[in-house]
């Protein structure tokens, strides 16, 4: 829910970095972003976690 609320507030070219646990954590966040049609700009592994850089919803 926190991810959903945070990405809903993105405007224009704003980007948001989300840090999640690998495995189930990244799976759940990826599903949320897919459902809300947000743009994932870059994903990087950070130790036992994953950093996702997310942009505003795709048009249409």
């Amino acid at each position, binding site marked *: 829910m926190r991810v959903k609320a945070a990405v809903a507030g993105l405007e224009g070219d704003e980007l948001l970095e989300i840090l999640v646990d690998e495995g189930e954590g990244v*799976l759940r966040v990826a599903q949320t972003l897919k459902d809300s049609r947000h*743009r994932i700009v870059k994903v990087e592994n950070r130790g036992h976690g994953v950093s996702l850089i997310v942009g505003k919803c795709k048009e249409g």
Partner: protein
Amino acid sequence: MSEHELDSAALGKVGMMRQKQPDMYVMRLKAVAGDLTADQLACVAVVARKYGRGFVHLSTRQGIEIHYVHKDNLETARFELQEAGIEMGACGPRVRVIVACPGDDSCRWGNIDTKKIARELDARYFKLEAPSKFKLAVTGCSHNCTKANENDIGIRGAIEPKWDALDCNDCGLCVSLCPLHSISRAESDEGFSYEIDWESCINCSICTSLCPSGSWEVGRIGYTLFIGGTMGKIPRLASVLKQLVETEEELYLLIEKAFGYYCANGRKKERFGHMIDRIGLDTMKEAILGTE
């Protein structure tokens, strides 16, 4: 019904098992793929109240059992269930009720129509005699909710992903998502690409379902076919007979061959998987796949 008329083996054939309490029986009901209608459930409730003790037991194989039915009421209870379209399950050395997950009907991960396959297998195999009990399960994807590899025959929905460079924005999410770390990024003079290690890929569809740009697409879709799984006293996880069976026709042909081979070569009370261990998986594969 008098005591001498009650033959345990015959009753087992029609899904009725003797309890440890004298004259009391369990009625095992058939629910292919775990499905019953609301009206059928209402009938089960009535029968459980009238002839049982007002409760049902949910089995590990998606079935419903009515316990504490007196031997004198078995036939009447069975008749009332049949009136509602509820058939009895099976016990003993024969093919049991087919188990299935919801599949692509309602599950976002489901790759195949599990219920359709379960109904077809039910029509072809239910209650057929075998050397020992014989269980089949259908599961829609690699989440493996119905535990395909714990069954004598297990069918798991499978996809073979395909990467399309055109829409890919190189975000790298797929590398982090893949549960088996089968996806890697490569660089060459022609640019970047994403590649799959087919040896470790479990055909799960996570990459194709969650790729934000739709660059991972379903290349091929089909069924992973497992043979020889069992739990019980000597558990054995199933072996993969074929990683990606592409048509239903081939799927049913391979199952027919596998079941036929077991019936011809299995010893009395020997589970399919233990027969495979005795004769060798390679021999078994050759027998089933060799003449494809």
